[in-house]
């Protein structure tokens, strides 16, 4: 099997102008910092960024937004990264906000081949604007559509050469979901071991989802 291991520069060159990019993590936890940092140094532009909270001031997402490469953000919370909040005020980038569970499930639906799902979250709020409403057993739901990206950047602790990933603690967050919902998935990992060295019981992301591994 062709090796999935690449260096940082080679890995981030997969991202093209106009791409939709998913970035895993929740605040400072489980952010693929090095991938995002390396992308910031490339000439790529006009990106749509999907990230639950666009990180914090200390994460490289902050610098990615500052670099002007992002024209659209899809997130649930942007309070940790003032740069994203500024975009909402200035209009320099479009900011679309979703309830966090809805954002997670849209990504899951994309990765699971679903045409969407019905959620009660957001009924009676601005979230329902422009969405189809359906009633099932007398209860109202919003039709939420799936999300898919050209590239997903995720982070894991350990990978084997087949791409199976082990993610520790609360860093699973959006990393596990985004791994399923992009044409090309790049995982930033602290350790790469031989195939078979991660117990199948301990795999959080099956290797079939992972295209590229970058050891940091």
């Amino acid at each position, binding site marked *: 099997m062709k090796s999935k291991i690449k260096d940082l520069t080679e890995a981030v060159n997969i991202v093209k102008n106009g791409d939709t990019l998913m970035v895993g993590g929740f605040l400072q936890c489980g952010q693929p910092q090095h991938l995002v940092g390396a992308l910031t140094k490339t000439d790529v532009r006009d990106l749509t960024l999907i990230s639950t909270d666009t990180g914090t001031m200390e994460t490289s997402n902050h610098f990615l937004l500052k670099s002007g490469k992002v024209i659209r953000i899809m997130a649930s919370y942007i309070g940790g990264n003032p740069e994203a*909040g500024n975009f909402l005020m200035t209009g320099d980038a479009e900011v679309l906000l979703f309830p966090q569970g809805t954002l997670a499930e849209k990504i899951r639906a994309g990765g699971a081949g679903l045409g969407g799902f019905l959620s009660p*979250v957001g009924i009676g709020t601005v979230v329902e604007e422009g969405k189809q409403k359906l009633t099932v057993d007398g209860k109202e739901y919003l039709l939420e559509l799936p999300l898919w990206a050209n590239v997903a950047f995720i982070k894991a602790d350990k990978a084997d050469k087949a791409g199976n990933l082990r993610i*520790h*603690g*609360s860093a699973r967050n959006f990393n596990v979901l985004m791994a399923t919902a992009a044409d090309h998935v790049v995982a930033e990992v602290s350790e790469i071991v031989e195939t078979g060295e991660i117990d199948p019981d301990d795999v959080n992301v099956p290797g079939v989802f992972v295209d590229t591994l970058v050891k940091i």
Partner: protein
Amino acid sequence: MESREFIARRVAREFRDGDVVNLGIGMPTMVANYIPEDISVILQSENGLLGLGPRAEGARIDENIIDAGGGYVTVLKGASFFDSAVSFGIIRGGHVDATVLGALEVDQEGNLASWMVPGKKVTGMGGAMDLVTGAKKVIISMEHLNKKGEPKILRKCRLPLTARGQVDLIVTEMAVIAHRPGSGLEVLEIAPGITRDDLIRATEADLKFSDSLKLMEV
């Protein structure tokens, strides 16, 4: 006792042994300090863990274990980690017994506004809409008046809503008030030193007083 502590202590008495509880950021987080010793609750954190323990300090900090506010935390025996889809499945699927959140406004139809003030910097709704829609019991813990001294419990919310008709209980430093779907707000408890008139003056919404009105104790 300062009013925030008084509110947090009273909210903590709402839980039953074995409840799964999600506490919002800010004053709701303080509730964890006052859970009665004779019960144990399981704290859920929407970034992907059940069994949240106290803050981690020094050598106990693990950078991969945070709460939903980004603080480094410990986990208790029996804890579990999961991804965000599972986490919000737990929330949306009704597996959380109670959630405690702050509010900008609450109204007599059980509507909640807590995430946005038009014209001010928007931070996003995060997981609040999911929590308020999915948790079995929604408890609002807040000061009775806003910083300008105006009522926060209104006839009708004026700010953009977080959820429609989902609030079950409001706990402030003045009273404990239940939302009864279809029949408005009912005062269950009133704080020591507060009269019914004081409460009515500090509240825009119509209030009914329970036949078994009690003194608010912590």
